[in-house]
């Protein structure tokens, strides 16, 4: 029996067993890791969200597939008060929660579910705030929601009101994030009555396109299409996550027909995958940026002309070739090109070591010695920081700047690199959470983030005024203009050397159709079909 015949037989058999249907379709996704749990709110890993919030739940608003544009989800519409402090959501009627062998809902989704899903994260004294030992609402807290959110109120069964402590334009985008997934209050009440609260994280119930069937730890997650899904039943009947942590093994499974979709291929394997007649390889620029942040509080890096000169000494093309192996694009702005308000009119600093050397001399800098921090881990925005640091070391030596490369354990690296008196420039990066420019510009370059996630320790009044104003206006065109102007200031002041945005590749079987790559890095299977 050939491999393809074996696969067909396997899938046919599997789907018949799972659903009893003669022509059901099962899509196998070779995921890269195990979920931490199935309640998305306490977690921060994309792998967990792929297995929980995306197939199982919905949010009030959603990102339009393939974009970071926010569209209605469980809320049909919303209105913002003139002072920007009240968001009133009109909820979709007739939305069903999933029925499984462990729970059968008695009612449709309503405002109680929204209030439950947020209050458990907001209120420390809520019965579900600490429903398992050591639980923390990392994303909710990380997005400053406890400071921002005053209350979540039920107006009527299909209307809910969010009251804020201050105007915050990215609020709507925040509500499309995974931590804002809507859970069933009725299911929670049942678990509480049964004394089995911990099952909320193990046997999930949501309104999403697929329902949970079974999870065998570190091996397989099984889902079935949610028959009563409000946006219509999915083209596939069953979805299986075959957990396969090694990229080379995922590639072999894909080629052998043991899975239909496999994320995060090794860059070195891309040519082989593209050459396979049975496979297609989709690609998209990731919503991320890799950068080298100078410490703008320490001389001579407090001078913009010094930072600019160093930027002009970096040969980005050689970094893209050697470190990204074609899976990257040179970055000129602190936000990626796929994000709205990206200012494409900005010109990148030219690679010109001679001019850079003259600029340094003009700034009175001679025999400069500096440290470059190289991350000890591989990240989407920087696949090999050590190699990148070595290339920068070589580039800087050409303009007479001596570089010592340093590195620390990852947790220490993150901690020490935040210090205001940090010695040296640090290689780091960021992957967007919600597609809002504020999530890059304020988090990474805002004055409030100095000593924290603003690794350049850069606080520029002109830049700060622009991004703060953009937070408070709700008109997108106006916000776009403000962010475009902020990027001009950034480029002029050069607190970072912007290095690259990675390109994300997604190999899959040619039988798969309807798959849309998510700029936010998630993996969605609603709307995906499989040819017979």
């Amino acid at each position, binding site marked *: 029996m*050939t491999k393809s015949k074996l696969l067909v037989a396997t*899938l046919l058999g599997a789907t018949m067993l799972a659903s009893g249907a003669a022509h059901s379709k099962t899509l196998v996704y070779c995921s890269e890791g195990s979920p931490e749990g199935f309640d998305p709110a306490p977690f921060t890993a994309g792998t967990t969200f792929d297995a929980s919030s995306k197939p199982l739940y919905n949010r009030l608003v959603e990102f339009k597939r393939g974009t970071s544009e926010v569209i209605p989800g469980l809320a049909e519409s919303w209105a913002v008060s003139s002072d920007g402090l009240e968001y009133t959501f009109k909820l979709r009627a007739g939305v069903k929660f999933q029925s499984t062998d462990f729970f059968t809902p008695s009612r449709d989704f309503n405002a109680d579910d929204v209030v439950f899903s947020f209050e458990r994260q907001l209120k420390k004294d809520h019965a579900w705030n600490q429903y398992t030992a050591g639980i923390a609402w990392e994303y909710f807290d990380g997005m400053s929601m406890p400071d921002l959110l005053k209350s979540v109120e039920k107006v009527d069964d299909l209307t809910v009101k969010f009251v804020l402590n201050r105007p915050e334009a990215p609020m709507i985008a925040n509500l499309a994030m995974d931590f804002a997934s809507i859970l069933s209050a009725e299911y929670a009440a049942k678990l509480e009555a049964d004394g089995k609260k911990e099952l909320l994280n193990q046997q999930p119930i949501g309104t999403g396109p697929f329902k949970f069937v079974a999870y065998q730890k570190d091996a397989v997650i099984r889902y079935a299409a949610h028959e009563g899904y409000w946006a219509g039943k999915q083209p596939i009947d069953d979805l299986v996550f075959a957990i396969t942590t090694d990229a080379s093994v995922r590639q072999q499974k894909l080629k*052998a027909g043991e899975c239909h979709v496999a994320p995060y291929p090794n860059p070195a394997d891309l040519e082989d995958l593209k050459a396979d007649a049975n496979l297609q390889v989709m690609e998209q620029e990731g919503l991320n940026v890799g950068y080298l942040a100078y410490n703008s509080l320490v001389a001579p890096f407090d001078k913009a002309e010094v930072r600019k000169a160093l930027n002009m000494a970096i040969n980005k093309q050689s970094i893209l070739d050697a470190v990204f192996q074609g899976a990257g694009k040179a970055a000129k702005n602190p936000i990626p090109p796929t994000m709205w308000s990206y200012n494409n009119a900005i010109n990148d600093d030219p690679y010109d070591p001679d001019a850079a050397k003259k600029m340094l001399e003009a700034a009175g800098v001679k025999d400069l010695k500096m440290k470059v921090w190289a991350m000890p881990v591989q990240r989407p925005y920087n696949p090999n920081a050590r190699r990148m640091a070595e290339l920068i070391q070589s580039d800087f030596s050409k303009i007479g700047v001596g570089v010592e490369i340093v590195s620390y354990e990852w947790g220490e690296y993150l901690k020490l690199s935040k210090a205001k008196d940090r010695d040296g420039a640090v290689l780091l990066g960021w992957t967007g959470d919600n597609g809002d420019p504020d999530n890059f510009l304020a988090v990474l370059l805002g004055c409030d983030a100095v000593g924290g996630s603003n690794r350049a320790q850069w606080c520029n009044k002109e830049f700060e005024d622009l991004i703060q104003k953009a937070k408070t206006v709700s008109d997108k065109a106006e916000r776009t203009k403000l962010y475009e102007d902020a990027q001009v200031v950034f480029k002029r002041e050069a607190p970072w050397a912007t290095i690259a945005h990675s390109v994300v590749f997604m190999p899959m079987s040619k039988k798969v159709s309807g798959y849309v790559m998510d700029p936010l890095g998630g993996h969605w299977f609603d709307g995906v079909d499989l040819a017979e």
Partner: protein
Amino acid sequence: MFQFLIRRIGLIIPTFIGVTIAAFAFIRVLPGDPVLLMAGERGVTPERHAALMKQFGFDRPIYEQYFDYFFSALGGDLGNSLVTKKPVWDEFFTLFPATLELSVCAIIFAVLVGVPAGIFAATRRGSWPDQTIMGTALVGYSMPIFWWGLLLIILFSGTLGWTPVSGRISLLYFFKPVTGFMLIDSLLSGQKGAFSSALSHLILPTIVLGTIPLAVVARQTRSAMLEVLSEDYVRTARAKGLSPVRVVGVHALRNAMIPVITTIGLQVGVLLAGAILTETIFSWPGIGKWMVDSIFRRDYPSVQGGLLMIAVIVMTVNLIVDLLYGLVNPRIRHTR
């Protein structure tokens, strides 16, 4: 025998205490902490960091944390994973059958192939088959597991299509685990073809994990056998006209097996170490991969609990090996 057993168990107690201290200290001396790693690039304010450390109980004096861990462990409570929030005990025993199944298959493979290969080599000392077997064993011993595993996958799964790439059973089969041992559960499920699927998924991981123990067992068997074959009683047996098969298979083998059994017992630790890589390559949901993930995430309770459980298992296996000596060779008596 009873006194020996008591003495051996008496030795286990200080070892157990030592292991709890080592496991507790090991994860804490590593730089970084779970909160920093959880927060990632986003970072965490010093206040929130302190609050979370307090919530996890890591703000208490170190001796207090240790005694809490020690006495809870004695009572069978290994705490909750910081990552999944589930009890470490449950996590361990959900995954352990997969590692045990693979390890048992690997050791059976190593013994079934290694012992006859060692005997064969010993009886033909210096010949080309002896040199070939020992040379191959040396190569097997030196083989990096990760490379070896990928090589077999590419050859047998990718190119020839003879074996599945990874996992424990085809996705075709779906049944609730009863014992956690896939070979047994697949039989219990009554689903046609499930057992052969589980067996086919075991082939490559067994070979990969069993390669190093196989090499060690083969070399040890050969050397023990050579020693025994030069003993007077073997010469006497031969002089009495016993067949070579009886001399080697009965008279010599029994004595030669004592060091081999010791070696096999010691290979349990090697197997658990090898399982980390083998499980990663073959997407095998066992404790090796789980431990590595836990270390990277600084999941203190999982690392402490996991290391302790593994140590207890290794100690138990070695105790059993000691007791087996008496059964294999009646000359050894565990009396005084």
